[in-house]
């Protein structure tokens, strides 16, 4: 709230204020009594109102994780902040404050209703994440340019908008501009937009809107393309063969090779390179295709495994549930019998019988669990073996293909060496016809120099190829290890412990129930 004289001390959101507000706005009557008795957790609160409190800074609200509606109107807040933890917020009211910039709303993705009425905002911005925005009130602010409204086009659910009282409302085109530029709008400044207004507005701004739409579509398409590309790339990456469907490996071999450009100038080398590149790209493509195929195969295998495990678990679960249901029926009957019985001897017998039944139930349930553990263990072993085989086969095939690349490189190396020596000889004899670049000339000093250069280039290439190979193998093996680790942990250890705990808990509960009952009958 803007005031001329800040006579009142600004208030701070502290424990007391929150507690008081929560209690005031909490449940009433009997529920209120209970609530008071046990206290209200801030995490349970869904609505909070902090109005007319002279608050300067939004703070200390991080406990209200489940807050759905927050009203902080009529304060002297200057910045939107401290709301990052309120992820469930749907309704936010910050009207009649001193906010100048829209900010700090990025984590409120569920927000549908935002009120910033009567503030000092001059630009619409930083609201990209509020995709569900339905009602937006930004009247009585400092918005000067109609272009601000173009920003609102991105909210596909925005139906109600309040803009009155901004400087740009003076503009006679304000209304048609708003209607035309925010196509989803149904209510503007508390009034229904009728067909005529809409048609007129659309006519007026047709060209501008068309341009906007075209831009937006282009952007959208670009985004979709990029997304698809990213998806495809990540798929390839999962298959460990990213960038192998082109000359990427070949290029990288020569990129990090300082000798390559020099040697490339040797006569006849360029043709050699073309052939080399072609062959290598061909083999890379093979690796790529093979990798993708194998990846899909592995994926299928894993899915099938999980489906089977799930099936077994559900079957086992159903068995357990039936058993427990049967027992519950027995229990009901037994408890009814207990209540009826008066003879202590018979009662004792009955209780003993019940206890035996409970033990039997425990045995059965544990038996089921052990059976499942055995079954899963076998299956997991099978799966592990099959997956290991698959990975080994894949690795071997990749190695085979990459050794072909290596052979290519070796052949290439020998040819270059040959050319280099011949060129050297010619150079020494001054029989070379063409101009030779200076860098190459430096190498053509003697045989050792040129041989070294060629070898260095070869080594670099070899290193690149080896690295790529190692990379694929390592990642494949790593994936397998991680998968198996996870399966063992999740499917065997954690599951088993949970189940055993659950069974024991249930059995304990049954015994406890019996004790309670006995106590009552005993008394």
């Amino acid at each position, binding site marked *: 709230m803007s005031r001329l004289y800040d006579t009142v001390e600004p208030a701070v959101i502290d424990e007391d204020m929150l507690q008081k507000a929560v209690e005031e706005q909490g449940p009433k009557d009997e529920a209120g009594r209970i609530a008071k008795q046990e206290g209200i957790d801030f995490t349970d609160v869904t609505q909070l109102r902090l109005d007319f409190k002279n608050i300067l800074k939004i703070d200390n609200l991080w406990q209200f994780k489940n807050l759905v509606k927050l009203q902080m109107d009529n304060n002297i807040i200057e910045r939107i902040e401290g709301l990052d933890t309120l992820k469930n917020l749907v309704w936010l009211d910050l009207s009649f404050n001193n906010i100048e910039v829209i900010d700090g709303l990025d984590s409120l993705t569920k927000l549908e209703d935002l009120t910033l009425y009567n503030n000092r905002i001059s630009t619409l911005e930083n609201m990209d994440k509020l995709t569900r925005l339905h009602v937006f009130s930004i009247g009585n602010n400092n918005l000067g340019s109609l272009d601000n409204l173009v920003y609102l086009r991105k909210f596909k659910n925005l139906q109600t908008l309040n803009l009155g009282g901004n400087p740009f409302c003076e503009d006679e085109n304000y209304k048609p501009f708003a209607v035309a530029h925010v196509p989803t709008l149904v209510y503007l400044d508390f009034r229904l937009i009728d067909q005529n207004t809409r048609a007129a507005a659309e006519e007026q701004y047709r060209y501008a809107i068309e341009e906007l739409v075209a831009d937006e579509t282009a952007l959208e398409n670009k985004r979709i393309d990029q997304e698809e590309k990213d998806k495809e790339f990540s798929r390839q990456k999962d298959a460990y063969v990213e960038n192998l469907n082109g000359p990427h490996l070949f290029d990288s071999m020569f990129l990090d090779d300082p000798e390559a450009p020099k040697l490339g100038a040797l006569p006849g080398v360029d043709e050699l390179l073309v052939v080399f590149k072609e062959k290598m790209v061909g083999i890379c493509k093979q690796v790529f295709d093979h990798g993708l195929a194998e990846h899909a195969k592995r994926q299928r295998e894993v899915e099938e495994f999980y489906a089977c495990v799930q099936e077994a678990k559900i079957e086992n679960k159903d068995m357990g*549930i039936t058993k427990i249901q049967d027992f519950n029926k027995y229990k009901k009957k037994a408890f009814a019998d207990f209540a009826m019985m008066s003879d202590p001897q018979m009662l004792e017998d009955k209780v003993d019988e019940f206890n035996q039944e409970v033990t039997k139930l425990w045995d059965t349930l544990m038996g089921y669990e052990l059976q499942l553990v055995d079954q899963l263990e076998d299956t997991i072993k099978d799966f592990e073996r099959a997956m290991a085989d698959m990975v080994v086969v894949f690795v071997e095939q990749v190695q085979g293909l990459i050794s072909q690349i290596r052979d290519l490189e070796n052949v290439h190396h020998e040819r270059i060496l040959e050319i280099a020596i011949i060129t050297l000889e010619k150079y020494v004899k001054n029989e070379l016809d063409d101009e030779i670049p200076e860098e190459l000339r430096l190498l053509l000093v003697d045989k050792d120099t040129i041989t070294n250069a060629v070898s260095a280039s070869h080594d670099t290439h070899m290193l690149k190829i080896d690295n790529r190979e190692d990379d694929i193998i390592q990642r494949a093996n790593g994936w397998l290890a991680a998968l198996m680790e996870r399966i063992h942990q999740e499917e065997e250890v954690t599951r088993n412990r949970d189940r055993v705990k659950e069974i024991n808990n249930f059995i304990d509960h049954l015994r406890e129930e019996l004790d309670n009952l006995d106590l009552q009958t005993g008394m």
Partner: protein
Amino acid sequence: MEDIDEGPSIVVETGSVDLQGGGDDDTQSAVPSEALAAVEELKEELDQITVEPPKVDLIPIIQVDENLPSSYKENNNKEKLVLQYAENFRRQYVHLYRDRKPLLLCPLNECGVEKFVCTTIRPTLLRYNELYDYDGCAEFVSDYVTFDPLVPPIELPKTMVSPTKVLKTQRGNCFEISTLLCSLLLGTGYDAYVVCGYATRETTLCDEAREICPLLKMKNEIKKEEQKKEVKKYSVKPPKDLRSKFILKQEAREVEAQRKEEEKRRKEEELRQEELEKPPQDELFGLRVHSWVLVLAGKREVPENFFIEPLTGNAFPTGNDSFLGIESLWNNNNYWVNMQDCSNGCKDLIFDLGDCTRWEYMFPNNEKPVLEIPELEMDGLDLEDDEDDEKEEEKNLDMPTSWVDALELSLTDFQSRCPQGKKTLLYKRAKLEKFAHYLLRDGMVTRLSIYHDRELKDLIQVKEWFSHRKDMLDLRVHNHRTGIVTEYYKEGRQRHLKEHLYKAGSPAAETDRTMIFFHHARVDGLVKREETPLEMTEHFLERDDFLFYRHVQYGKRQRRLEPASTLPSSNPRPILKIVDRFHRNPAKPASEDVAELVFLISEDRIQLTFHHQDDKITASTRDFLKPANASDKGAILMYSADMTSTFQVDPHQKSAKDLYIYNLLVSLVDQEDKTVASVRESEEEVREILNDRMAEESRSDLEISVYDTERNEKAKQHRVERELLQMEEKKRREEMELDYLAPFLAQIGDPERLMRQQALKLKEDCRADLKQRLIDEANLIQARFEKETAELQKKQNWYQQNQVNMHKDDEEEYLAFCSEAMFRIHILEIRLNRHKENAPHKYMALEQRLRTDPRLSEHF
């Protein structure tokens, strides 16, 4: 006379024997030897007096209907030619195949005229949709026409009436019915033939008492498809079986032996039963002449050749046992004689009509592809070759068009289907009755009674099908063994009842019954409601609140001191317990999603069981004791911690807050009230449905389509009114025409009857009057003519006088006048001539009219 069941003819016969026997009585006692001789004599005499049963009319008493078209009564030249040709064919056939039975070629029609069978077929397409497919046609024909057996059953009939007559009289023998059916099938585009052959007694007599009713057969055909669980690669192995293999084997063997024993017994039983039901031996087996329809594959997407039995309307594969052999077959194009061996019934017959070694055809213009026969096989076929040659010469002979009128069938006849709209069929342990639509007041169309024994005494079940019922009742099954009635309804009822199952003896509310509903149409998604006197179970589908099951237990109604006439709703049965079950609501966590909610109303307790969490075998539960003031309206519920107890699956989970539990309790108490209310609503609904049913059953209104102008009263009334209006209009117009006798009658004072004198005078007057008038008219024309000529004359004179000093305009005017006058004169002249010509005719016409006039005719 009571004990003598025979017909009157037999009575006469015995009378005649008595006359002679009366004389013999005396002789027998007095003189035995003589008597013996006399008796012998008498016997001989008696033997001679054979009873001649009125011979089945070779030529039936023909009452030639005058209205029949001439094509029925005589043969045209072409037909005569064909008849000669057929006769020639027959002679050759008899000559060549002496041991074969004669062919049915040219029986007499209803006018006693020989007609070639192929021309008796009249392909016709009727306008009813139901008759577009062969099964519809066959069913209709079998229903519509009552069948007369052939007499004697081993001879071909001498007559064969036209299909039009069959349709009209609704009677016919198997040949006539086949011809009718074949005509309809050809009309709808099937490749159909009338077959003349031999069949079993049951078939020829249309006796289906040993067949299972087709309506019962259909049910058995629904097969269960077993779904086999596929074993996946990683499916877990089943747990080890720790039982003794040996014992298992031993047990299995025992079970197997028992099963075999059972099987054997059952088979024996079946055999015995079959033996019992076998028809008695038929000494005429294989000789009984029959006719049916053959449909060949090819046209109308018929995949395989098959027979249609016209008497029952059933279709059979060509290998069926009932059909024992084929002599010949024909349709409107040609006539084929079977050359194949029928000793094995029709199983081995090949219906390749183009193959002349198997099928000898009569007309060379065989449209079937002719099989090429290699020369080598021609040994035995020389004769046929000759015939073929003969035919070659007469290739120009083709089939004359049918002599039968186009078949017609009125809508009412079509709808009534059977004669009088009723038909009863007997099957093995079942009786099927068919009724025409709208025939019965309650709309019943079909009734099937199933019996336990063959004598149709021990009733098991009655099924009644209805149509056009306003209350959408479709089928009612009454099981007489259990006394349970099941009614099936079509969609569109109020409250969307689909099936209603109840005991016939106790139709009132609060008894055993099951109602099944169209849940899609219902707001509450109710599928089924089962009731017993103290229980009610409801099943739901696709509800927003995930409720799928509700079970209510009632206590005994408390007796109150009230007048017995009070409504049941004023004193409902007390509810003891309500169990609601819910499906999993994926939006809620399992530990808060209620799976089962039990209101123990009599104990003031509420029990909750929550859904199982993923992978958990135990479910959380929570019990509430209802607070003491829960039943007070508007009171604030009090709460204390000992009112609830719980079991939580996860012991580490923080126990719920009291506030949450309190709110839960409040909502549950609220829900209990609502649930009770909805249970009461359900009870009320049942009562209303039952009341509705009672009312509907007593009214049993039938729905009449607005397009059905015959039955729709409103439409009919409208039409009748329009017709009346038209009649009136016509009458009025008739009156407009003047009565030529009226003025003369008026002169003599409009007497009721005319005396002869008066009549003569009247006639004379009338004649004279007309004569006078005609003459007057002629005179008038003449006068006009003269006047015109005189005027023209005058003008001409005037012209001649003033011709010299005449203006050009005047001259022109004069010329125009002249031509016009000439034209008028000419017209008058023509008119006069025509009048002169017509006058005698008119006079004669009047003369004629007077002679035939009803008022005068009696006197002349």
